[in-house]
């Protein structure tokens, strides 16, 4: 999906007051890491902060960040589409990333993925109908000694995954509220291509 028709220039904030407070604090810290004239460099951190709040990167939020850091919309989009951790559409409230790289593959990641598919009733790249889970294959997580490995909700590692530990994980997450996703479409000028 490639979002189209972003306008440069002032863009309204996509955040609630509570979210805004956290975002502003995070951005201030991220910008302070760089020399004063290099604040554009904080773009990658800024998009992480957006995703922390909204669960994904809606188009108006990208426009807002671009405006703040004085980065042209095309460059914000370039970055957002280049890196795999950024979500360009809402995903499930819990996200399961199954490592498919060589060590995990050798230790049975294919059956881990298959079990996820069966239990959740979705294929990689999809979200369950109730919005609780999304499933994805991910590249090497640097946890090869604990193969097969999973990444839960972008940042939490589960290693030496067995059928039992996987079932337990899915059962636990199934009963937890998880990350609230900002709705797709609201105030968005996105076009699917």
């Amino acid at each position, binding site marked *: 999906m490639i979002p189209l028709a972003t306008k440069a220039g002032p863009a309204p904030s996509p955040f609630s007051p509570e979210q805004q407070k956290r975002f502003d604090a995070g951005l201030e810290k991220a910008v302070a890491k760089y020399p004063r004239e*290099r604040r554009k*460099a904080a773009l990658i951190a800024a998009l992480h902060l957006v995703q922390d709040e909204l669960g994904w990167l809606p188009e108006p939020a990208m426009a807002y960040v671009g405006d703040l850091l004085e980065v042209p919309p095309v460059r914000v989009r*370039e970055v957002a589409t280049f890196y795999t951790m950024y979500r360009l559409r809402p995903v499930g409230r819990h996200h399961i990333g199954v490592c498919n790289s060589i060590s995990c593959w050798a230790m049975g990641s294919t059956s881990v993925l298959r079990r996820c598919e069966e239990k959740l009733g979705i294929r990689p790249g999809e979200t369950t109908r109730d919005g609780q889970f999304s499933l994805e294959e991910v590249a090497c997580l640097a946890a*090869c000694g604990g193969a097969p490995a999973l990444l839960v909700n972008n940042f*939490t590692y589960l290693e030496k995954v067995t059928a039992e530990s996987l079932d337990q994980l899915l059962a636990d997450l199934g009963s937890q509220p998880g990350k609230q996703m900002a709705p797709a479409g609201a105030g968005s000028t996105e076009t699917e291509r």
Partner: protein
Amino acid sequence: MSGPRILTAAWDEPESWSLARYRASGGYKSLPKALGMQPQQIVDEVVKANLRGRGGAGFPTGMKWNFVRKETSFPKYLVVNADEGEPGTFKDREILLRSPHMFLEGLIIGCYAVECHLTYVYCRGEFRQSAMQRLQSAVDEAYAEGFLGKNILGSGFDLEAHCVFGAGAYICGEETAMLESLEGRKGYPRLKPPFPANAGGGLFKQPTAVNNVETLANIPAIVEMGGEAFDKIGLVPKNGGTRLYAVSGHVKKPGVYEAPMGISFRKLLDDYCGGMRAGSTLKAIIPGGASSAILTAEEADWASDFDTLKAKKTMAGSGAVVYFDQSVNMAQALANIMRFFAHESCGQCTPCREGTAWLSRLLDKIVAGKGEKQDVDNVHQIARQMEMKTICALADGAAMPAKSYIDKFRADFDALVRG
């Protein structure tokens, strides 16, 4: 397990990551010593130590630091590559989790040596709430103790250190792609020269030393014992110290093991990893990450240092060793690896973008049982055409396994194809 342990000596202790524990085991003693030396003296010791970059290329660290020192343009930067992502590699994560202060002490000394006052640790985004959180706590502690900040330990040396995150891209482990990402852009590798160490090529176009986490974690030991003593630990000339071997695959005890640089793959397997898992016989070895050319079981006696493996047309790479048993068909293993490279090619150079995609499609066809003999030959030929034609080494890193898996395990491919 036998042999000297520099990096992992305290790993078995409870809370090995804490400042108190690190100090109790002699930590932060090299820092005041280093700050009492001339920066050039430190670099001279690192040169004598024959410390080679542990990220993958094995470039002599002391030489790299001398390049940066020779530059007359200021400011200079030292940037740490903690974007661990080469399939099979998981040692920097362990360092950050288990001895972040050792790494940090090395980083501070390294910055003093190249006269850097602002340093960044670029870490893969997935580590944000685990390894990187632990490093951030260590950084905060170091500031509180006066190891970072203004006038460190009264030496007059100032250093600011920041942790920053990527967002999921293998290519950002390539040093110039990492610098692009650190500057807030997509990770397209830069055309070289100028190299990062030179003016015009580094972070914000300033001279920049880019070092791996493990490389820097060795610095306190070098300052403490001297370059010559460190060099002698290595088993092969010009390959000093120990190395963290990240072992995965069908071994009894996968994990990160510290062994003298240059240990043979047989010894690493038998003495450290408990041999192959029950009922397994060794079939093949990835010696240095997914980008390296494969070894057969008969080649397990090869030394694992940078120069030996280079001479044998493979590489020591990131120290990621994967042992495969007889259950693995090497055509299927290559198809897996190639899917990774096709996915991770940044798309900037045509031979890589198109080449990895073609190789992946052909190999998928082969493992699906729909291939012909000609397809195997085509994989080999396409791989040869990708070499030495691109801005960075990703294409070469895809071509090297493609050629070697076929050269050494042709029967595995032929078993899957017609004709």
